[in-house]
Each structure stands twice: as C-alpha cells, then as structure tokens.
C-alpha cells in the first residue's frame, strides 16, 4: 500500500485542485446561522458541495449532521415521467446527471456504511441492482479522515469498527501530530485522486505514528457495549415479545429522525406525482418509524404500536442485516442518539440485550405491561 504525508493546512489546496479538475467536491461545511452566537444556535455542520478550498471544515468538528448517504441514495429522484394520451400511457425516461464526485473528510463510520448500502442496492447475490445508486457509487471517491475527538454518543468500537478504520475508504488520512497527515492509498480510485494531489503529497507516511494516533483516539471512546450476543438473542423468537421492547420503547414518538440521519437506513417509498394527465413516478426516503409504513389497505397494521416499530429498527440493524449480508447494519456513528428528541438510545437496547443474554432466567414479562 502506498503511503505519503500531507500538511493539514494544505487540505484547502487539495480541494482547489480537485475542483479545478472538474470534480464535484463534497466536504463538511458549517452552515451560516441567523444569529451565530445566539442562545438557540447550534453548529450546523453538513456535507455540502464546496467550490473552493477556503470554505470547508475537513477534519474539524465531529460528524456532519447528514451522512454521505444522500450523495449515493438521493433523498428523492424521479424514476420516469409518464403521460396519458387517449387510452395509451407513454413512459418517458428522465435524464439523470451523475457527476464525478469526491467526498472529502468522511469519518470512518460513514465510510464503513457505504458497503452496507451497497449490499442492499447493488448486491450481485441478491440479483438486483439499483441503477441510480450504482451509477453514483461508481463515480464517487471517498477521502476519509480518522477521528480525533469522538463524543459521548460515539460507539463504533462496540460494532467492530474503530475511529481510525480505513474500511470503505479510497484514500485515508490520519493526523499524526505537528499539523501532518498520514496518507494511505487504499483503492485504485484513491490512487487516481492521489495522482491529482501529487504536488502536495510528500515522501513516505509514518505508519507507526498513525497506529499510535488511532490507538489514542480509540481510548477516548466511553460508550462501550458488547454487541456479540445480540444476534443470537434476537434469533430466539421467544424474545420477540420480551417485556424490554415496550419498557424501553414506549417513549418513542414516531418521528423518522433516527432513520433519516442513519448512514445505513435505506428504506424508500414510491409515489406518482400527478398533474392532470401527466406526472412523475418519484422515489424518496421513507422510515419504518412512521405509523403508516406497515399500514395495510385493509386498515390492519401489524406494527400498530410505536415500540414495535422501534423493535423493527433494532432487529433490522442487529439481526436482519447480518443475517442477509456480511456488512454491518450499524456502524456506531451515534447520530440516532444525538438526533432523538426523547433520548431513545440504541445502546441502551444493546446493553439490555447483553444483560438478558447473560441472565437467561431473568424475568421475561413485567405484569405491569400486560
């Protein structure tokens, strides 16, 4: 594997070079606020297209509020247009732009999530390919950046990742002190980008310093859970009606914040946006937390109560996903914990399951919930 070093202060120049090469560059960027220092204002860091190297927060802050998901799996997109002429309906293809893109400043958890999306949208074994996703994926290169300051919601080490992991990365950067970055070329796409940045890259990297930096940051994680027993516990169908689901989940209010900020959640809906005799068939993000997600036409709803919807989300991450694919269902980014308006915390479920798995004879049902 090729390595090099880069001055952290040259990241802006890297962005400029990539923009000059006619690439769409996406980077973490602080969004302007009406009242920057106002008591109600918070830092709004998001992945956004940047046009110049003066305007980015690569390596600063922790995680952008949005993940990189929306650049591969669009929030909404038309599948095709249609028009009714007499008794015939004509299907009209819609032109999509898939610009060559570099996303820089991606944290390791987000990078690991790309493979999880691929499992769903372009898994050869599943025999299905989402052309919109695969087109975007094939034109997107990820420059990742090891974490330096995880917060109290981060839990990547609990799901077999680490704050300096290069999984899913094309070109990986790690701070090694003195304003220097250790650069690792991981894939061919990464090599192509490295070539464009070659004037800024110097000599060999410092693997020792990189490993040391990674280990130091890993030490800073405080939210540590044992995810090993979760899948087996969920596989036991008796636990599907465990008292825990309602006890922990009854405060859930049924918004989709956790699923929309989640880098691996991928459910979508399709509707016809009709105008007179023509319109578009549109695909857009949906959430299993919405009450009408499983509502049948008959009026019956198998997930009639909010806690059952959250049970589905947890099962999706830790049972359905690993059962079907080899990629992680949860990458431990902690976004769902930060975003939840009522502090419903996925790691509390993880801890509870680990506890129950270790104490199989503990009370199964709480009479108060029957």
């Amino acid at each position, binding site marked *: 594997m090729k390595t090099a070093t880069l001055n952290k202060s040259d990241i802006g120049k890297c962005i400029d070079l990539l923009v000059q090469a006619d690439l769409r560059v996406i980077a973490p960027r602080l969004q302007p606020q009406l009242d920057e220092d106002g008591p109600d204002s918070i830092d*709004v860091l998001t992945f956004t297209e940047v046009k110049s190297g003066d305007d980015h927060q690569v390596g600063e802050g922790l995680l952008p509020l949005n993940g990189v998901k929306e650049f591969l799996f669009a929030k909404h997109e038309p599948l095709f247009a249609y028009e009714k002429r007499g008794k015939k309906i004509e299907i009209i293809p819609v032109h999509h732009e898939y610009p060559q893109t570099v996303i820089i400043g991606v944290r390791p958890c987000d990078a690991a999530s790309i493979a999880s999306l691929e499992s769903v949208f372009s898994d050869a074994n599943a025999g299905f390919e989402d052309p919109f996703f695969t087109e975007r994926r094939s034109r997107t290169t990820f420059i990742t950046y090891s974490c330096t300051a995880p917060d109290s919601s981060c839990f990547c080490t609990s799901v077999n990742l680490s704050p300096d992991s290069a999984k899913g990365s094309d070109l990986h950067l790690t701070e090694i002190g003195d304003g220097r970055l250790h650069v690792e070329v991981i894939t061919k796409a990464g090599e192509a980008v490295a070539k464009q940045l070659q004037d800024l890259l110097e000599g060999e990297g410092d693997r020792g310093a990189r490993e040391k930096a990674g280990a130091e940051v890993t030490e800073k994680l405080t939210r540590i859970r044992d995810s090993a027993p979760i899948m087996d516990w969920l596989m036991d169908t008796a636990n599907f009606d465990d008292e825990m689901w309602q006890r922990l989940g*009854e405060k859930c209010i049924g918004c989709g914040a956790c699923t929309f900020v989640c880098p691996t959640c991928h459910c979508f809906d399709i509707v016809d946006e009709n105008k007179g005799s023509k319109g578009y068939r549109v695909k857009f993000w949906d959430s299993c937390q919405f009450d*009408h997600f499983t509502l049948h036409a008959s009026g019956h709803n198998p997930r009639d109560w909010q806690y059952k919807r959250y049970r589905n989300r947890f099962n999706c991450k830790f049972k359905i996903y690993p059962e079907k694919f080899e990629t992680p269902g949860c990458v431990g980014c902690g976004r769902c914990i930060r975003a939840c308006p009522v502090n419903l915390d996925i790691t509390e479920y993880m801890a509870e399951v680990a506890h129950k798995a270790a104490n199989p004879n503990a009370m199964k049902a709480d009479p108060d919930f029957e």
Partner: protein
Amino acid sequence: MIEQIRNQARLLLENGDVDVVIGYAEGSDPTRTTPVFIRKAEDVDKLIYDPRCINSLPLYLNKRHEYTRKGWKKTAIIGKGCDIRAIVQLIAENQLKRDEIYILGVPCEGVVSHPEKWDGSLHDGNRASKCTDCDVMTPHETDFFPGDKPDIDRSNPYEATSKNVATLMELELDKRFAFWRTDFDRCFKCYACREVCPHCSCNVCITDETTPSWIDPAAHKKGIFSWHLTRAMHLVGRCTGCGECTRACPMGIQVDLFNQRMKEVVQESYSYKPGYSLEDKHPLITYKVDDREDFIK
C-alpha cells in the same frame, strides 16, 4: 422542590388516584434527560427536574398516543409553565378533559436550548430564548405546586419573539425566501417537528393523506415548502411556543420561526395568546360580531 413532587407522585400512585406519572428522568448522557412513565410508587425517585428538562411532555397526552395511553384512566404529568400552556390549549380544543389530568407544576428558571449547549449551568449563552419573557415560570394551572404560588400578572397579550424573527422580517422578501431555500434544502421530512408538537393532533396528518395527496411526500423543494408552510398555518393561534420543533430538528432548521411570526400576527390582530384559559377558543375557530376586521382590505 423535586422531593415534594416525588412525595406527591408517590401518594397519587399509592392511593390509586392516577395510573401513571409522566415526568423526566436522567438520560443516557449527562447533558440529556428523558421522558419517563412512572407506574409504581417505588420508582418515583427516578423523577428529576432541572434546566435540562427540555421536552414538552404534553405531547404524550395527545390522542396520537392512544396506544401508549391505553389503560390509563387518570394521568399525572409534571409540567413547567410552557408545558402547562400546551395542556390548557389541548383542553380548550377538546382534545383532553381537565379531570383526566393531574398537573404537578414545577417552578422553572428556564431551560437550556439544546442538550449539547449544557455545560453544567444555565446562563445567557444557553438559556432558550423562549424563556426570556416567560410569565409562567410559576405555572398558572396546577393541581399541585411545591410551595406558595405568588400572584403574577399574566394579562399582557404580547410575548417577545426570538431576535431571529426580527432579523428575518427586516430582510427583503427575496432574501428571506433565499434563507428558507437554503435551510429547507437540508430538510428530509423526518417529521420530528410534527411528532414533538403537543398540538399536532390530527388522526391522519394532511401530509400523509394519499387520496388525494395534498402535499407531495418527497423531500424536494415543493414537498418541503408545502409541508412547512401548511404546518405553520395549522398552528396559527394554537402554538404555545415551546420551541420543540426547532430543538428536535436533526438538521438544525429553525422551523419555529414561522410559528413565532404567526404568534406575533395573532397578538397584533386579536390581542390573544393561547394556553392560558381552559375555555377560550382560539381566534381562528371562532368569531365575534364586533371583530375589528381591519385586516380585510
């Protein structure tokens, strides 16, 4: 203070006067608290109250949460003044009966605007702006209140709005529109703004209607704008200003600026602020023969 609340909650549960006490408990992180439903007297020590208790708990009294409320005949709820305004408003809108609810009022010194701004104390840098001009820090409608309730004049119909409302209103129309275009670009329609709102009480929200589909469900500009503007209009004269929609937004969009602006309009036109009287109907669902009508041009 919290000891008195806990004792009262314990008494209510022991005597079977209520089935559940809705309150706040420590969250999973030192900066956060979480809503909690206490059903057993021995659990009342979980209840806490401090400036981190941001959530507007009356949302759980809303009919939307009928499943959660299944089997609760009488509910006790811990309320700071602004939450109690929401309860009063729900009662005034016939969404709730006063005798179904036992209100444990708490004295409030203001709450933090976002959990991530909590640094151990409440100060000008992190106190939610809604708390600046609050006249219900000693709440108005309670069944239990620790200590004496001082007499407070709450007759002034004008509440301050956030500085940001004025900043926006000073902008020219196209710049104001540009602001919302940029901010709404982040919206992905998770509906956290709707779900935290104590006043969104429709069985089926207009945005979830499919026959016909009034509002495009996709998160494109049209779908986003029509959702947020409809939401703002549906809350005119009803919004009690808890600010939860903005606090809950995972993308940091200040959606409550619409509601605050509409609050100003209602105050200017009708000298009315919602959530103070159990009987008053809000101005847009009633009429008076002697209405000024000077807004009809």
